[in-house]
């Protein structure tokens, strides 16, 4: 309540007291009607004071309501931040998903190629097995695939490594890959050649580099599993 309102309220109370004193005097002097008139005035003063007090309360409440109410900035900043955060999360999730799928795609391509290579090498095996191979033959890198991810294949290669003759020059440290031979002339595993040759290696240079087939152990089950897995992934 302002000082002015407070002063007016107190003035009304004083006036009410004054009218009450006058009414009291009139009632004492047996002038009832005049006493009633003064009492009426006292009541009106009290009512004025009461209304003034109530009005200031209402004003106070209104003022409080206005201060309590957040401004439009305060009202919208939280939802806006929430929407932004949600958008960022969705974006991140989509990016992660995309990244995952692209990784899987590249993996599966690699796997598919490996499987193809493995299948190729597998198809070489029976052909070569029938050939008498010199112990000094060297296994070309491209002819035998060594995928790291395919354990069974690696195991097979390991077996081959153990059993290969001492002269074999397989570079074990090299990453097993889908690499094509550096020198095309060294590519000695043309399956067609073996097939055409009726199971015989015609070229002496090629035959000289081929490892004895009996030293290879192929895990067919593992290969099938890998192939079906990559097919399931749709790659």
């Amino acid at each position: 309540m302002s000082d002015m309102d407070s002063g007016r309220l107190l003035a009304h109370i004083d006036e009410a007291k004054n009218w009450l004193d006058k009414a009291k005097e009139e009632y004492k002097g047996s002038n009832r009607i005049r006493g009633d008139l003064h009492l009426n005035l006292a009541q009106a003063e009290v009512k004025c004071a009461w209304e003034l007090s109530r009005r200031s309360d209402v004003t106070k409440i209104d003022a409080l309501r206005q201060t309590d109410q957040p401004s439009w900035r305060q009202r919208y900043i939280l939802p806006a931040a929430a929407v932004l955060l949600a958008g960022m999360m969705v974006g991140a999730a989509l990016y992660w998903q995309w990244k995952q799928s692209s990784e899987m795609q590249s993996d599966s391509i690699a796997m598919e190629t490996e499987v193809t290579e493995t299948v190729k090498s597998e198809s070489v095996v029976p052909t070569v097995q029938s050939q008498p191979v010199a112990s000094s033959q060297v296994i070309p890198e491209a002819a035998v695939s060594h995928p790291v991810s395919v354990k069974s294949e690696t195991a097979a290669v390991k077996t081959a490594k153990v059993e290969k003759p001492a002269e074999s020059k397989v570079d074990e440290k090299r990453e097993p890959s889908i690499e094509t031979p550096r020198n095309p002339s060294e590519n000695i595993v043309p399956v067609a050649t073996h097939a055409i040759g009726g199971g015989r290696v015609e070229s002496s240079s090629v035959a000289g580099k081929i490892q004895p087939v009996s030293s290879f152990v192929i895990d067919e089950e593992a290969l099938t599993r890998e192939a079906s897995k990559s097919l399931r992934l749709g790659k």
Partner: protein
Amino acid sequence: MIQQYLAELSKIHLLAPQEETDLWHQYKVEGSREARQKIIESYQPLVFKIASQITPLEDLIFDLIQEGTVGLIEAVEHFDVTKAVKFSTYASHRIRGRMIDYLRRHRSNQEYLELAIHQEEIQDILGFIADHSVNVEEEVTYKIIHQQVRLAISRLNPKEQKVICDLYLLDKEPAVSAQEMAISLSYYYKLQKKALQRLRGMLSKLRAEMKASG
């Protein structure tokens, strides 16, 4: 009971124009509480008069008097002596306004609310022709309005004419006027309401012109 109050109110000393001016000066400029009390006391009959014009019901009259007295106190506090408005005119609006608010809050008194609203709407015109202290500058306006109001009143039936003249031009008490006409007080208020309604319609153009001219 009302008659006793009216008898007591008639004993109240009415202020002479110069005395009133002095009292306003003492109250508004010097802040005299006694001057304030004298002004309020001397205008108490106005509250009774307005309340008795609205209803004949005794209980309701006392409620209206209570509300009207609050209006009178507010009018005394807010009245601006520098403006060329008579205090009685200003106070009448505030007193009747409080009474109308009271009647609005108490829906059972709808009939009296309508009457009070009619009175409030044509109060300016009726008050203007009842006011004999018109100065020379206002003489022309006064004559025009007086003519139109007289013409409108002449179109009312004789009973309605008497009610309006007694209440607003001669300041008679409703009970006294009803007694003179040998009719019941309730019938008197019905006549008053009907007459005010018709006057309101007839003077609507004049009221609009008065409002426009300020």
